[in-house]
Structure formats: structure tokens, C-alpha cells
């Protein structure tokens, strides 16, 4: 262990870079290129987002609403949690109407009726002309509406007063959700303004600010040329990208997998692995994770119940206490919280393994403080959302309560605290890793693991740029930096780095192979994912370049999903191959199964279901229907949910003593979670979404998103059909997991690793002929990778790399 001995000078001890420089250069270039373009697109967002007129007036000069009304209306919309009830520009929740499309449809119907009704061709033409002509004067900040449009506004104010302030609820909001007449006026002004941007043509173009979204025959909204063209081009890019990658993969020996390895591995019985105090502390994290998961899934079933039966929850008027928008706010927030809890825990768990068993003092204390802070943030933010939506917080609603942007619902204070919590976590990891990092090249695995962790708070913090004052288009840009880029790229990166490292620590994957997989991940996800974030923003008031670039690059995102699934199996193959008959069986059967499930759902949920809704022309009709929910559940639960559970099962294998461990619980959780999720998708979300999509194409977007459609016979039948799968998921999947994590807490007091144990090996021992190198830990230290010559005497104890 010469190279890992403490005390030597850092310079002479430093382990050189283990991977060709080309990898590092490619990763840096792709990332910089992606973020450069993303920066330009951010600037364009602010330049080209639809204007908010200072006043909207009738031809005679009577003010209908002012710019401040619109801005205040957005705040009412956010504070009351309406983005977790319905949507704007298709973004938000899917029970309530899409307020943009709903306002547009209702007002255009009224205007046309006023001009002569459905029978009159002249009326239809005049209505289209009135909505498409952009009568906004930039110089004076004045938008002129016709008298008919103004009359429709007055009518719709009454309509929204009824919908949002209904005293008996039964529409998914709490009774009397918004009753203040001024607030109703402002929120209607906000809906009306977004509806105006959806039909009025962008200056110099023949399509609206939203690229003609939503589909609405009454105002002549049809897919633009861009929408069609870039759909076709993105398909071509996908084919070309896949072909190029597979060709390159066939041509070059990318990953250095071709060597045989004759070593035998002996896994240490989980019981004999001594854990550090901080590792013991993670038992509570996993228990908290399972608890949050249970609450999240229960809230999900409550939200689902609203879709099946809006009037009551088996006789209980649930909407009085837990209205749909609150339940969905909590459901989506907890989806992030419980997954992140597991990620934080696994980071703390593997840090001492990476540091070769060394842990600084007070690391466990810091971890416990972190968990405490996390609990405070989770509970505080959820209660804040309740209080904010109910208006109990007065002017502090966005600070302490409910900022209201979907997925970033939590109050600003909690958002800052959560970011700070993740920073503390990074500090914990840094403390634990610092000795190791000092002796490593920045391109090696310990640094990559640390940098991937560092990216998590950094990109979550971007969400702070979306405030209730930010105009929707810009706010949505920043929101999707979190919802897409943070989740899909940076959580993916952290995941890949962690999974790869776990395999390395188990000795079943060589460090160099793992390293090349991480770099490949950075290059592939960087190439598609960064700019591909724009695929969420085709129709939210962004100019056409966002649509073009988003479509093209997000099609490339499917490539790594196809490819890394292939790679995931290879991981498994290596895992299966390289250990041989040893006294202790491979201890992580079920953790590996959860990883296999991640590969499956990456392919089906993220790849197939995601691509199904990705083309602009599909998204134009599809956005905000059940097919989006289908993709969201199969990808978020399928990939990150399974991963979070897999991490927990891995760590619990060491936390729970052997005599208390039973494969029964993880086995049951594995099958129930996967089959329950498949049921959810195939019984309800996929067929329901497909029918809804058909309805959009047939009768326009507003109609297909109306409560009337959702409460229709066929849709309700499909919604109820979900029940058996959800029961399997909850009872067979989440509860055994909760029990397993409780066992971890209950029995976690095993032998604690002492400083004197430094020489005691961690997770496995290598026996047999090792590749060239002085000891068992050096097989990967060999920079050109051509070792494997002279047989070495069996190393009695080898430390994980």
C-alpha cells in the first residue's frame, strides 16, 4: 500500500491521471460548448419573451387591465397553488384546465358568438383576425383589444370567480379558494394576457409568441413550419447520432474492456465489514427516505383519487383539508426530497470507502446535523406550502410559504436552506475525501465523484432565479434548468459516478473502465442534455430557436439512454464474471437487481416514453396530457426512485447484521415496485394519455384538458383501473422497504471502525495472480493499462482502490 501511506509528500505521492487526455478534453469541450449555447439561449429568452403591456385598453381607450394587474395575477396564481392544479402554456398540473388554452377558447367562442355565431363564415374569419393581429404598441406600452374581447374578459372574470371561489369545492381546490374580487380580476387578467400571447403574432412573423400553441381552431392556431421541420430533422439527428456512436464504438476500443483478468475476488461477509460512525449515521437517512417515500406515494394516490372521483374521497370531503393542488405540491416536492435523501446518504456512506477507511472526527455529528436540517427543511417547507396556499402567511407567502412554481414550490427561505444543506453535505464529503483528493489527479475517480456531488447544490441553486415576480417565460427557463438539467444531467452524473464507484469498491469493475464510463456519460449527456433542456420550452413564449435547438439536441439524449443501457448490462456482466467461488457469496443481489431495473426504466420510461412526447409536433398536441404523466412516473420513479432504493439496499446490507438480514424484504419491494409501476403505466397513464391526445387533435386542447373530459365515463374507468397496481406498489413495495430501513436503524450498532483498523480491508479481497503492480491496490494505478504480466504472490489483504 505504498502509495496510500499517509505522510509522504503530496507531490511525489500523487497518482497520475488514469485515462487518456482526450477524454478529459472532450468532456470539458462538450460541457463548455453546451453551456455557452445555453447562455445565449438565456439571453434570447429575456430579449424575445412576450411583452406585458403597461395597459390593455378597448378602442375607445377604456382600460381593461394594466401590466401590474397581470403581474399581480401571476402572484395570485402562484400563491394559491394554481400551477399545481392547472397549467399555463401547458406547464403545471393536469387536473384543472390549462388556463391559457381555457381562456383563449372561452373568449374566442364568446367573440365569435357576438359576431354571428358558428354558422357565420364571416364571424369565424373576423374572430381569427382579431386574435392574430398584434395591436400592441411597444412605444406606448399599450395593447388594444376589441370591445368583444373586452366583453369576454368581463364574462370570464365571472367564470373564474365561480371556478376558483366555489363555496362547495368539488373541483379539486379547497372551497372558497380565491374569493377576493380584486384577486379574481388580476388572475383573469393574467390568464387573458397569456391567451393573448398564444394567438397574437410575433412582430415580423406569422406565428404567435408561443409558436401557435395551443391547438385552437377558433383563432387559427396550427403547428408552425418550424414545429414540423424540426420534428423531422430531430428524427434524422437521432438516427445519425445513434449510428455514429455505435459505429465509433465498434471501430475503437473505447473502454478498454478487452483484457481478461485472472484475479479471484473474495467478498467480505457484510458482518465483517467495519463501518465508520458516519456510515452508521446513514441508517437514519435511509429510514427518513423510506418514510418520505411512503408519504409521497400516499399523497400520489390521493391525487390520483381526485382524477377518479372529484366529489369526495369515499365519502370524506378531502378537498377541505387536502385539496388536489396541495396534495400534488407535496407529491412532487417529496419526489425530489426522498430521492435526494438517499443520494446524500449514499454519498456519506461511500466517502470513507473511497478514503480507504479513514474518516475525520465529528463526521457522524455533521451527518446527523445534516439530517436534522433536512427534516426541518422538508417539514417546514411542506407546512409552508399549506399555509401559503391558505393565505395564512400574508405578505411572507413566497418567503416562507409557497413560491408556487411547479417542482420549485417551496418558499424561498426553504429553497435557500435546502441548497445550504446540500453545501454542508459537500463539505462533509470534502472533509472525508480530502486526504485522498490530495493524492489524486483531478481526472481520477475520487475527484469526479466529488465534483459530481458539488454540481448538485450548484445547479439546484439556479432555481432561485425563478421568483414570483419573474415573467413566466424566463421563470420557466430557470425552472427547467432544475427540473431537467439538474435532474437529468447532474443527478445522472452523480448516479453514474456513484454506481461506477460502488462496483469499483466491490472490486467487480476495474477503475479504468468505470472512469471511461463516467467520461462517456459526461460527453453523451453533455452533448444532448444541456441544450436539450429546451425541449420543455417549445411553446412557453420562447422564440423559435429554442424549439429548433431543443428538438435537435434532445433527440440526441435518447442515444445515451439506448447506449448506456447496453453498458449497464456490461457492468453486470463484469460483475458476474470476475468473482469466483469464494467462501462468501456476492452480497448485493438485490441492490444489483434494482440497478438492473434502473437500466430497464431508463430504456422504457425515459427513452421510449420520453421520446414518444419529445418531437415538437407531438409535444404541440400532447403537452400536459396523461402521456406527460406517463413519462414522468416511469422515468422519475423508474430511474431515480429505483436507484434511491438500490442505494439504500446496498448500504443496509452492511448496516443490518447478518442474522437480522433477510432477502425477503428487498425481493418483495423489488417486484412490487416494478410491477406496480408497470401497472400504473400500462393500465392507466399510457391508454388514458393516448385517448387524451386523440381528443386534443380531434377537438382542440382546451376541450381535452377540461374537467368535463376528465370526468367522462371512459377516462374515469381508466383512472379506477390503476387501483390494483397502486395497492401492490404501496403495500408490497413501500412498506417492506420501510421495514427494512427500520431494521437498519434498530440494529445499526455494529462494530465501529477504529483508526487502528486502517489496514483492514474494506469490501473485498483479491486473491490470485494480480496484474503488474506492487500490491493488490495498484492494478489500476498502471497508466497505460497493459499490465497483467507477471503473476504476483497472492495478496493477503487488499484495500479497495
Amino acid at each position, binding site marked *: 500500500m505504498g502509495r496510500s501511506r499517509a505522510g509522504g509528500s503530496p507531490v511525489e505521492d500523487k497518482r497520475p491521471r488514469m485515462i487518456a487526455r482526450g477524454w478529459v478534453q472532450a468532456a470539458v469541450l462538450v460541457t463548455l460548448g453546451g453551456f455557452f449555447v445555453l447562455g445565449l439561449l438565456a439571453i434570447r429568452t429575456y430579449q424575445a419573451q412576450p411583452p406585458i403591456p403597461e395597459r390593455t385598453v378597448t378602442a375607445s381607450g377604456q382600460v381593461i387591465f394594466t401590466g401590474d394587474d397581470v403581474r399581480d395575477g401571476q402572484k395570485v396564481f402562484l400563491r394559491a397553488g394554481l400551477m399545481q392544479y392547472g397549467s399555463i402554456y401547458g406547464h403545471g398540473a393536469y387536473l384543472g384546465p390549462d388556463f391559457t388554452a381555457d381562456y383563449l377558447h372561452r373568449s374566442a367562442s364568446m367573440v365569435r358568438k357576438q359576431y354571428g355565431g358558428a354558422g357565420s363564415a364571416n364571424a369565424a374569419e373576423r374572430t381569427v383576425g382579431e386574435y392574430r393581429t398584434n395591436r400592441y404598441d411597444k412605444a406606448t406600452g399599450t395593447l388594444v383589444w376589441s370591445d368583444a374581447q373586452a366583453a369576454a374578459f368581463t364574462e370570464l372574470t365571472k367564470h373564474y370567480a365561480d371556478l376558483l371561489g366555489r363555496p362547495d369545492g368539488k373541483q379539486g381546490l379547497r372551497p372558497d379558494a380565491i374569493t377576493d374580487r380584486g384577486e379574481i380580476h388580476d388572475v383573469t387578467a393574467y390568464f387573458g394576457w397569456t391567451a393573448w400571447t398564444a394567438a397574437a403574432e410575433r412582430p415580423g412573423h406569422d406565428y404567435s409568441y408561443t409558436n401557435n400553441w395551443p391547438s385552437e381552431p377558433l383563432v387559427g392556431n396550427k403547428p408552425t413550419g418550424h414545429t414540423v421541420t424540426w420534428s423531422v430533422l430531430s428524427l434524422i439527428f437521432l438516427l445519425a447520432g445513434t449510428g455514429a456512436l455505435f459505429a465509433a464504438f*465498434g471501430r475503437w*476500443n473505447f473502454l478498454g474492456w478487452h483484457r481478461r483478468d485472472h484475479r479471484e475476488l473474495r467478498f467480505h461477509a457484510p458482518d465483517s465489514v467495519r463501518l465508520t460512525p458516519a456510515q452508521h449515521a446513514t441508517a437514519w437517512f435511509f429510514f427518513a427516505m423510506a418514510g418520505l417515500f411512503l408519504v409521497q406515494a400516499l399523497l400520489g394516490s390521493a391525487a390520483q383519487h381526485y382524477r377518479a372521483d372529484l366529489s369526495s374521497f369515499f365519502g370524506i370531503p378531502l378537498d377541505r383539508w387536502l385539496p388536489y393542488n396541495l396534495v400534488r405540491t407535496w407529491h412532487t416536492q417529496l419526489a425530489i426530497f426522498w430521492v435526494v435523501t438517499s443520494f446524500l446518504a449514499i454519498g456519506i456512506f461511500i466517502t470513507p470507502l473511497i478514503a480507504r477507511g479513514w474518516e475525520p472526527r465529528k463526521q457522524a455529528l455533521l451527518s446527523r446535523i445534516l439530517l436534522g436540517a433536512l427534516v426541518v427543511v422538508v417539514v417546514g417547507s411542506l407546512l409552508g406550502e399549506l399555509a401559503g396556499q391558505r393565505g395564512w402567511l400574508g405578505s411572507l407567502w413566497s418567503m416562507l410559504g409557497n413560491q408556487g412554481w411547479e417542482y420549485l414550490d417551496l418558499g424561498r427561505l426553504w429553497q435557500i436552506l435546502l441548497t445550504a444543506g446540500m453545501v454542508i453535505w459537500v463539505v462533509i464529503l470534502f472533509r472525508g475525501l480530502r486526504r485522498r483528493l490530495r493524492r489524486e489527479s483531478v481526472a481520477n475517480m475520487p475527484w469526479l465523484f466529488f465534483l459530481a456531488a458539488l454540481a448538485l447544490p450548484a445547479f439546484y441553486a439556479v432555481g432561485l432565479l425563478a421568483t414570483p415576480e419573474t415573467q413566466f417565460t424566463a421563470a420557466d427557463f430557470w425552472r427547467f434548468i432544475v427540473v431537467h438539467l439538474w435532474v437529468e444531467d447532474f443527478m445522472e452524473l452523480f448516479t453514474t459516478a456513484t454506481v461506477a464507484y460502488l462496483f469499483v469498491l466491490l472490486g467487480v469493475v476495474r477503475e479504468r473502465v468505470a472512469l471511461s464510463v463516467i467520461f462517456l456519460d459526461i460527453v453523451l449527456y453533455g452533448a444532448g442534455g444541456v441544450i436539450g433542456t429546451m425541449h420543455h420550452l417549445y411553446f412557453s413564449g420562447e422564440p423559435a430557436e429554442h424549439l429548433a435547438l431543443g428538438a435537435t439536441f434532445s433527440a440526441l439524449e435518447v442515444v445515451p439512454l439506448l447506449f448506456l443501457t447496453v453498458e449497464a*448490462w456490461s457492468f453486470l456482466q463484469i460483475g458476474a464474471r470476475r468473482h469466483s467461488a469464494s467462501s462468501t*457469496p456476492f452480497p448485493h*443481489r438485490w441492490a444489483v*437487481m434494482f440497478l438492473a431495473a434502473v437500466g430497464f426504466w431508463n430504456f422504457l420510461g425515459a427513452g421510449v416514453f420520453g421520446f414518444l412526447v419529445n418531437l415538437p409536433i407531438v409535444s404541440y398536441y400532447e403537452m400536459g396530457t396523461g402521456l406527460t404523466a406517463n413519462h414522468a412516473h416511469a422515468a422519475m420513479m423508474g430511474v431515480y426512485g429505483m436507484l434511491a432504493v438500490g442505494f439504500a439496499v446496498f448500504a443496509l446490507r452492511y448496516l443490518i447484521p447478518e442474522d437480522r438480514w433477510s432477502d425477503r424484504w428487498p425481493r418483495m419491494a423489488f417486484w412490487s415496485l416494478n410491477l406496480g409501476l408497470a401497472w400504473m403505466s*400500462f393500465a392507466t397513464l399510457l391508454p388514458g394519455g393516448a385517448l387524451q391526445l386523440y381528443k386534443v387533435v380531434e377537438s382542440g386542447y382546451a376541450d381535452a384538458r377540461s374537467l368535463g373530459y376528465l370526468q367522462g365515463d371512459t377516462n374515469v374507468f381508466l383512472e379506477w383501473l390503476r387501483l390494483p*397496481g397502486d395497492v401492490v406498489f404501496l403495500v408490497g413495495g413501500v412498506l417492506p422497504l420501510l421495514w427494512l430501513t427500520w431494521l437498519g436503524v434498530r440494529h445499526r450498532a455494529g462494530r465501529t471502525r477504529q483508526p487502528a483498523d486502517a489496514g483492514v480491508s474494506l469490501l473485498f479481497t483479491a486473491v490470485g495472480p494480480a496484474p503488474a503492480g506492487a500490491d493488490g491496490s495498484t492494478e489500476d494505478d498502471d497508466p497505460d493499462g497493459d499490465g497483467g504480466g507477471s503473476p504476483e504472490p497472492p495478496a493477503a489483504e487488499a484495500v479497495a482502490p
Partner: protein
Amino acid sequence: MSGETLLTAGYLGVLLLVATGLDLYGRQSTGAWESRVFTGYHRAAGQTPEPVSRDAWPHSEVHRFHRAVSLFVSVVAVVLASGEALRHHSPAELALLVAVALPHGALLALLGRRLRHAKVSPPE
């Protein structure tokens, strides 16, 4: 004949494709070296690893996983057809639903038998 029944029948057809597709997808070799993607790689690499056995863990279990998901898709299909039969049950509708549900029933029996007989060798 109700439109809903026709849609259900159509969707059951889609699910049949999904179930068989998933099973076929799951049957392919999960040993990366056997994948056609790696043909060029084979040539480049002098010393390829020994081929994996389909019955070796975790490959055995990966096959089983796909098969179980397939089976569940067919269960969904049968439940959907039964539910639809409760809602719409004129003779023609029943005949159609039975006709589209039968292949799923056959698939269920087949996949169920294969699953029961599948060898899973937990890791040693």
C-alpha cells in the same frame, strides 16, 4: 358496438405487441460481447472474455425480470378486457373482447410456465 370497446380492443392489440416485445427484448443476450453492437469491437479486441451463460446470475434474473413485466402487461390486458366487458356486453362486444383477450390468456399461460421453470442461480 361502442367506440370504447373498439378502443379497448385496439389497445389490447398494442399491449400484445408490448408484452411479446418486452419478452423478446428480455431474451436477448445481456452479455455485452455477444451484442451485435460490439461486432467491430470483437475484431479490435484480441482477447475477449469468456462468453456468459444465460443461466448465470445476474443474466438469469434479468431475463426473468423482463418476462415478469411482460406477464404483468398481459394481466393488465385481461383486467382491462374484463372491466370493459362489465361496462359493455352486447354479444358482438363480448365476442370482440374475448377474441382480443384470448392471445393474452395464452401468453399468460406460456410466460407463467416459463417463469415457474426458469432457473435462477443466486450469486455465489
